[in-house]
């Protein structure tokens, strides 16, 4: 029931009581009013009576007085005398009755003098009679003073009676109205009260219903709890102090096969136990009663059909206020499954142990105080130790204290109390017989069933080699002359090798702390961004990309990048500083450019020279030819007309012209030899020498010359040029042996160390002074005057030029009067197939 409703009910009841009280007041007042009304009626009647009485008395007095007057008999005066005293009494009574009515009192005041007047008139009649007898008295009566007074009195009385009646009527009217009002108020009050009471009753009824519902819910809850109790998946029972079963749930009954009637109050718990369990129970029950609780005790129950049921029992004791044991509340769990699981656990442990044994990582199992209980085979193999040296010993003492590492034992020690674990603890230790090893350790807490203790599993991995490899990689990374780096997708370098400091001046930290694009030359940024995006998008390697990076000193260095993208936007890159080589390349290309320009200039100069030579060959030779020709014509047509001197002059003109012509020809040839393109063709030197020798036949005339021509090879050379060489050398040999009777010219060839050929032409002619050997091959240099031997001084210069162009060398040996030997060498050239073909085509 709600608080609100209680308040409403309270207020309702209060209002009803107030209404009732009001009704009581109204009723009282109405009743009082009715009392007053009857008093008023009585009063009115009393007033009427009193007034009638006054009238009656006055009438009696008048009657008496008149009897006396008529008779004079005193006897008649007796009622007069009686009424005279009573009239005043009646008037006093009236006065008393009308005391609280001012109108009637006023009327009474008018009545009183009238009465007095009447009384006085009658008194006078009486008096007159006594004194004067009948006549005066009759006159007096005849004067009717008394009658008028009486009439006035009657009128006053009537008026008073009517006034009294009117007042009564008016009052009664008011009283009746009040009575009606009170009746109406009573009816309304009753109705209100009735309604209020109905409302209150309804409210109370609802309250009762709610209470009924709550009670129903409580009952249902109780039933549910009972149901829960009965159908719980575990057994419940309660034992009294004697161990008698006083309550048991359905589950336990079902387990055991008994009915509740058979068990409750009749059986003791001990009756359900096997002998062994009974003994255990006998031992435990008294202690339980004292201590109030017991947990996870294993009992074996005997069912009605004789089967055994292993259970685990936990119980709490219930005590009364005096602390006396009342009953137990025991919970039983069917332990059959757990027993089976324990069986399975044993198997699982064997399974786990075989895994532990076969696992390649060394494992040790430690007690809570870090003593080794067990280690696997891999442990003994890895650390070259035995179970005898290991099991039962504290971890810190193993391997000569190698495991006594700062941090490790503490870390392990926190695992059990704080239920933590750790992974990847790295330690390096000097292990006896193994050297320095780096190990990675993982530890876990293990629960040991049965005795509720914990153990630690410590797994270790020998990562010495991996660490070494990493260290080597790291060294490689650190020592690399190339700048190695890993760029990540966020635009920063994730890692950079120290070479960056050599190349760009920045420390690695400085270099890593800002986006790499910021460090790229502004003109190269766009290209760099594109390159990176392209590379990441296409996943292709970049083999050569160059951009400029800022050196710490503010200069720009050209870096040549090679990089490989990796998934996730990483890029592994190497960079090489190519600034110097780029500068070198620029200088080289600059030089090349200059060289090309020079070559072009040279070419132009050559061209000019060619044009000059061309012009010379035409224009210089023509007049010479004319000089000679006309000299000849003159000789032919006019010789007879000239004297000897004239004829000699003519001959001189002719021979000079011829000499000049020869000189021009040879100069032109010399010039041409320097310019003409060199063609390397297959050339049989023996055949060529023979041919040239034949061509010189004209110069030899009748001279007998001993030609000794040795074995001459086939070479790769320019035939026209080599012919010129042989013509010059053989020509010289023939010329300078002219004065010898027994001329011998020896032509031979030997092969030098490089596979090249050295040809020589030896003669036994005039020879030359070795002091002037340097002059032999110069242009226009001659060691003999034209008187001795004719010549232009160009031949050997030409020889040398041709040989040098072939990559060889020309030189000479000789002595005056003992002949000369001229040598030239030709380097070995592999036959060129193309020139082969040309040569065969030419031949």
């Amino acid at each position, binding site marked *: 029931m709600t608080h609100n409703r209680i308040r409403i009910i309270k207020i309702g009841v209060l209002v009803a009581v107030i209404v009732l009280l009001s009704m009581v007041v109204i009723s009282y007042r109405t009743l009082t009013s009715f009392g007053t009304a009857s008093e008023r009626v009585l009063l009115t009647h009393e007033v009427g009576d009193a007034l009638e009485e006054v009238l009656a008395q006055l009438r009696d007095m008048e009657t008496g007085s008149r009897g006396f007057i008529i008779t004079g008999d005193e006897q008649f005066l007796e009622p007069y005398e009686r009424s005279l005293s009573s009239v005043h009494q009646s008037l006093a009574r009236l006065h008393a009755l009308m005391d609280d009515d001012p109108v009637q009192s006023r009327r009474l005041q008018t009545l009183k003098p009238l009465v007095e007047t009447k009384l006085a008139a009658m008194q006078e009649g009486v008096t007159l009679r006594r004194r004067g007898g009948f006549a005066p008295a009759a006159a007096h009566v005849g004067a009717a003073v008394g009658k008028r007074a009486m009439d006035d009195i009657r009128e006053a009385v009537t008026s008073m009676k009517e006034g009294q009646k009117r007042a009564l009527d008016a009052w009664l009217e008011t009283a009746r109205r009040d009575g009606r009002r009170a009746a109406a108020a009573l009816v309304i009050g009753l109705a209100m009260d009735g309604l209020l009471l109905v409302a209150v009753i309804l409210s109370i009824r609802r309250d009762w219903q709610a209470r009924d519902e709550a009670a129903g819910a409580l009952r249902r809850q109780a039933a549910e709890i009972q149901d829960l109790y009965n159908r719980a998946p575990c057994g419940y029972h309660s034992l009294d102090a004697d161990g008698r079963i006083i309550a048991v749930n359905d589950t336990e009954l079902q387990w055991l096969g008994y009915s509740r009637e058979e068990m409750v109050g009749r059986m003791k718990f001990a009756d359900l136990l096997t002998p062994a369990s009974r003994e255990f129970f006998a031992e435990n029950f008294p202690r339980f009663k004292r201590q109030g609780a017991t947990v996870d005790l294993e009992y074996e129950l005997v069912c009605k059909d004789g089967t055994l049921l292993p259970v685990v029992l936990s119980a709490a004791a219930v005590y009364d206020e005096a602390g006396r044991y009342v009953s137990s509340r025991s919970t039983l769990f069917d332990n059959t499954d757990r027993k089976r699981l324990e069986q399975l656990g044993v198997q699982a442990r064997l399974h786990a142990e075989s895994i532990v044994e076969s696992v390649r990582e060394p494992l040790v199992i430690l007690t809570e105080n870090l003593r080794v209980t067990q280690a696997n085979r891999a442990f003994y193999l890895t650390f070259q130790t035995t179970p005898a040296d290991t099991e039962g010993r504290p971890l810190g003492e193993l391997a000569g204290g190698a495991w006594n590492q700062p941090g490790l034992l503490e870390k392990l020690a926190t695992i059990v109390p704080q239920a933590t674990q750790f992974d990847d603890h790295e330690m390096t230790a000097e292990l006896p017989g193994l050297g320095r090893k780096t190990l990675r350790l993982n530890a876990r807490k293990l629960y040991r069933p049965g005795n509720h203790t914990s153990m630690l599993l410590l797994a270790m991995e020998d990562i010495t080699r991996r660490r070494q490899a990493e260290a080597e990689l790291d060294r490689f990374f650190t020592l690399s002359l190339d700048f190695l780096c890993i760029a990540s997708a966020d635009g920063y370098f994730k890692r950079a090798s120290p070479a960056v400091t050599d190349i760009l001046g920045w420390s690695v930290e400085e270099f890593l702390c800002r986006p790499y694009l910021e460090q790229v030359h502004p003109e190269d940024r766009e290209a760099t961004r594109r390159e990176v995006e392209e590379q990441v998008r296409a996943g292709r390697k970049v083999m050569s990309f160059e951009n400029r990076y800022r050196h710490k000193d503010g200069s720009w260095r050209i870096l040549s990048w090679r990089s490989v993208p990796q998934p996730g936007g990483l890029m592994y890159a190497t960079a090489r500083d190519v600034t110097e080589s780029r500068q070198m390349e620029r200088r080289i290309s600059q030089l090349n450019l200059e060289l090309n320009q020079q070559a072009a200039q040279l070419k132009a100069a050559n061209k000019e020279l060619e044009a000059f030579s061309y012009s010379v060959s035409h224009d210089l030779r023509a007049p*010479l030819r004319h000089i000679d020709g006309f000299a000849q014509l003159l000789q032919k047509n006019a010789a007879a007309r000239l004297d000897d001197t004239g004829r000699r002059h003519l001959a001189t003109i002719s021979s000079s012209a011829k000499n000049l012509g020869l000189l021009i020809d040879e100069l032109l040839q010399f010039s041409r030899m320097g310019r003409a393109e060199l063609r390397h063709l297959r050339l049989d030197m023996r055949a060529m020498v023979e041919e040239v020798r034949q061509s010189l036949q004209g110069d030899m005339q009748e001279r007998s010359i001993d030609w000794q021509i040795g074995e001459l090879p086939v070479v790769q050379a320019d035939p026209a040029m080599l012919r010129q060489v042989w013509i010059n050398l053989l020509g010289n040999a023939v010329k300078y042996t002219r004065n010898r009777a027994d001329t011998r010219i020896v032509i031979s060839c030997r092969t030098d160390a490089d596979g090249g050929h050295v040809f020589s032409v030896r003669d036994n002619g005039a020879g030359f002074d070795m002091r002037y050997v340097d002059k032999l091959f110069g242009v226009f240099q001659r060691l003999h005057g034209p008187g001795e031997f004719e010549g232009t001084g160009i031949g050997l210069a030409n020889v040398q030029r041709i040989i040098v162009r072939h990559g060889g060398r020309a030189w000479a040996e000789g002595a005056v009067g003992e002949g000369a030997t001229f040598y030239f060498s030709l380097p070995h050239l592999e036959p060129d197939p193309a020139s082969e073909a040309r040569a065969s085509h030419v031949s």
Partner: protein
Amino acid sequence: MNQIHSILFAEDNPHDVELTLAALTEHNLANDVVVVADGAEALDYLHRRGRYQERVPGNPALVLLDLKMPKVDGLGVLRAIKQDAALRTIPIVMLTSSREEQDLVRSYELGVNAYVVKPVDFQGFIEAVKQLGVFWAVLNQPPVGSHRPR
């Protein structure tokens, strides 16, 4: 002088003309030679125009061309002759003082029949001309329409 000449000789240098004619005279060929001073005139002769408008029709048996000539040089005349169907059968000898290989190559490319370097030695020159003159103008059977010297 015959109206029909057997040899057309184009040479601008009067000395060379005189020497050559002297050599030809020695071999009784001079009367069959028409000398023109440049290539343009040589072409006028061959095409019978200009001052040669009135000449007797017929091609010469041989044309001797100097290489270097005013107006149209020897190579130009050679090219013009070899491109003209009516003329291209006339034997052409390039007679020049040049020993330059490029001239020789160009001449043969254009279809010259012989190329003779004028020797300074006049005897050699006479010999060369004599051989050519004898060969082309005397011994060789000229094509139809040409005239053999008598």
